[in-house]
């Protein structure tokens, strides 16, 4: 590398820090969505960097569906305590009671994620909420802004987004309106893992491969944990696998893998041929389902 040049990870890092400082300076009550996964882990580290040696100038918010993996809850509580962050956990009244298999992923996500999120933002009067979404993740995200403008109902109108030029973000809002901010917009999944490796960022152990007893259904490997149950005719399988993306127990599939270290995960990422959302059942319900969810107020 020549002098005065930054590596791609350093450039991405600098851009994300710039965005976070901009939001902290221009909004009254920002909050950072914390979903316990790898993207959140990177986002929190970037926030620590942005405000160092100060503390995070905003709380973390976990919108809990009640269906997360026990390992995720353990990790969340320990991690946020260690870094001294303020954590708000918000649960919908039906969290953990609205069975996704009976109601379909679409409806479940709509109530337990989107509704709960909107409630949490409204109750706390948050006017800017950081999310870890990346443009590379899904087609409809490719056109998302860094500052994603939401109306009074938290809804996204793809036709009514503000042009974003240079690094100049428009922070003007009317009362009741809010923005979602995506500081990792330009990161890819591989960047995220390389950064976790470079920075030694702790992540939930579910990302690492080990022999797990799983249930195989419609080509997906699902965890044998509540509320998943074997149906008649199904048998548990014991396979080497890991979770590439963490969501709720009923709709998060694992991938076959032997990657037990971050270095091995990075290596796997460099040759992987499927997208990470391939293991998220929620995105497959219907054509353009992410776009529909976003319109309703999802991230």
């Amino acid at each position, binding site marked *: 590398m020549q002098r*005065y040049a930054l590596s*791609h990870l350093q450039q991405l890092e*600098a851009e994300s820090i710039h965005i976070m400082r901009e939001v902290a300076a221009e909004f009254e009550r920002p909050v950072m969505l914390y979903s316990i996964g790898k993207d959140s882990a990177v986002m929190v580290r970037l926030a620590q960097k942005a405000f160092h040696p100060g503390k995070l100038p905003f709380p973390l918010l976990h919108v809990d569906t009640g269906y997360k993996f026990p390992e995720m809850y353990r990790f969340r509580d320990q991690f946020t305590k260690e870094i001294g962050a303020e954590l708000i956990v918000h649960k919908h009244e039906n969290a953990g009671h609205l069975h996704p298999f009976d109601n379909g992923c679409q409806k479940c996500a709509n109530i337990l994620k989107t509704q709960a999120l909107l409630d949490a933002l409204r109750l706390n009067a948050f006017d800017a909420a950081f999310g870890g979404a990346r443009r590379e993740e899904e087609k409809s995200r*490719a056109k998302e802004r860094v500052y994603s403008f939401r109306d009074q109902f938290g809804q996204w109108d793809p036709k009514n987004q503000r042009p974003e030029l240079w690094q100049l973000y428009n922070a003007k809002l009317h009362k009741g309106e809010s923005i979602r901010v995506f500081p990792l917009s330009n990161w890819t999944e591989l960047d995220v893992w390389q950064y976790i490796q470079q920075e030694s960022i702790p992540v939930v152990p579910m990302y690492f491969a080990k022999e797990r007893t799983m249930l195989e259904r419609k080509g997906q490997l699902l965890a044998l944990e509540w509320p998943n149950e074997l149906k008649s005719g199904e048998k548990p399988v014991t396979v080497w696998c890991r979770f590439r993306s963490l969501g709720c127990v009923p709709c998060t599939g694992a991938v076959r893998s032997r990657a037990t270290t971050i270095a091995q995960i990075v290596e796997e990422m460099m040759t992987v041929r499927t997208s990470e959302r391939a293991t998220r059942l929620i995105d497959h319900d219907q054509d353009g389902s992410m776009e529909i969810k976003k319109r309703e107020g999802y991230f």
Partner: protein
Amino acid sequence: MNFTQKEILRFSTCGSIDDGKSTLIGRLLHDSKNVYEDHLASLQETSRRRNFAEELDFSLLTDGLKAEREQGITIDVAYRYFSTPRRTFIIADTPGHEQYTRNMATGASTANLAVLLIDARNGVTIQTKRHAFIVTLLGVPHVVVAINKMDAVEYREDVYNAIRDAFSDFAQRLAIPDLRFVPMSALKGDNVVTRSTSMPWYNGESLLELLESVYIGSDRNLVDLRFPVQYVVRPHMDFRGYAGTVASGVIRTGDEVLALPSQQVSRVKALVTYDGEVPEAYPPMAVTVVLEDERDISRGDMLVHRHNLPQVERHFEAMVVWMGDQPLDPAKPYWLKHTTQTLRARIDEVRYRTDVNTLQRMPAAPLTLNEIGRVVFTATKPLFVDAYQRNRETGSFIIIDTTTNATVGAGMIIAREPAGRLPAQTASSATAADMHAHSGSITPEERARQLGQQPATIWLTGLVGAGKTAIAYALERRLFDLGATCVVLDGENVRLGLTRDLDFSAAGRAEHLRRVAEVAKLLNANGVIAICAFASPDAAQRAQIAEIVGAKRFIEVFVNAPLDWCAQRDTSGLYAKARAGQLENFPGVTAPYDPPCAPALTLPGAEITLDDAVARLVATLRTHKVLSIAVKETP
């Protein structure tokens, strides 16, 4: 192999609907093995369902929104990511229809490089020119013209050459720093990732090879330190740091820095990051600057090196891309966001708009959506700016509607050169050099000998009503009687003709003075003494005038009279109007008057007779050797 040591190249792609842009991007992603299998599977399925075709429709990979897929068009800028072992790439995929100038500008604003697609069957079209213009306007340093669909013209070299030459001809008007051409077929994969075997006559690189190798190291400005303060980090009493992103230049520990606008000077004690202190920071690093002294610095301020200052301007001109659904309303205030400052600004004037298809300048009219024009602004507080061409970070701003909060425009600040080039539409330097060659054979010495005088510009500055014009004409009389050749220029005689097209906005006044200075310069060049009586309240503008005229010939005279005395003498009612708030930019009342720091002569306007004033002026001219040669003394 260390995979983390790669650079990012950001590029935008522009092309019209049928130029094959989506196919190119799809091909680039696919052939460089950056498309996931599940995305490919869904692509195959959709291709079959929609087109009943077996060939992959790559455009389906890039048209992200349902609304777009249903309409079969691209509405918005989409960002794509791929990497090769050498670089990682961020593509801003921008739709090329006429109504999407706004999107092209957005995509180009952060790009290092732009790929312009041309359909080989159609050659350079109006759209191509428009794309090239916008890309140049947004200051994209590298441009690759991809001449696509070569398969449809039998891969003919003459077709390629003709298009390349036609584009090169056109591009001379645009000043593109780095321009390349690639003949290509995105559909067949020729010269996209791998070099084509169908065009043996082309010895250059494939598009991807170009993207991997183009040198972007010098795209950034590492000369002018500009550090806009973004956020003050103050966790406890013992730490106060200014967090921000280095916009340009290099900042080092120990550097002496000046804070704008306060002009306080301090030294960099440390550059703090989470990973420890760093000895230096450069763009686009995000760091926290700790200074040696406690200073009152906040968001919106800027740290710079003391001997390399940006322009501190309330008043500036910019090329504007209008993005609002409502046309620009000159009567309305807007917010500007520039670096980390957001402030109100007024629009003084739309000078002209540029027809993006012909590059012709059109009469100024309110700019409407997707139009581009040159606009004069006055902000409520000074901005710390550089010309966009020199500095993309401090030369750019967005315009926000104060009612709807929408982002309605993007501005690129135009160089404010020494008055010479202020608001004028300047000739290129080549033309200026040409003109210089045509000066005549009479030397200044010959003129001085014949006229018996050294030429000079006597510049009388002072408040309106201080007596400048009366003194000017009295001096003219006296000099004439002494046998000198001189001309008076004052606000009235100039405004009636030479500058009658100009208004009284700040920009209008500046241009008015620039023309006066040019006339004085011409008079001086012909041996004539120019006596100029203009309020000219802005010290910086007077300095610019001195620069045009030449410091040696410029004699600044301050006609100094108290404001109230001037107002009492005023028979035109201007002071009354200004005091009632009906006149903007009125020196001493609604605008500041900067007294000269070191005038050649100060005349106390209220305490002196005309004769006295003239006598003192003549004495001054003698000490400046203006009248030393052969002027007849009259008793």
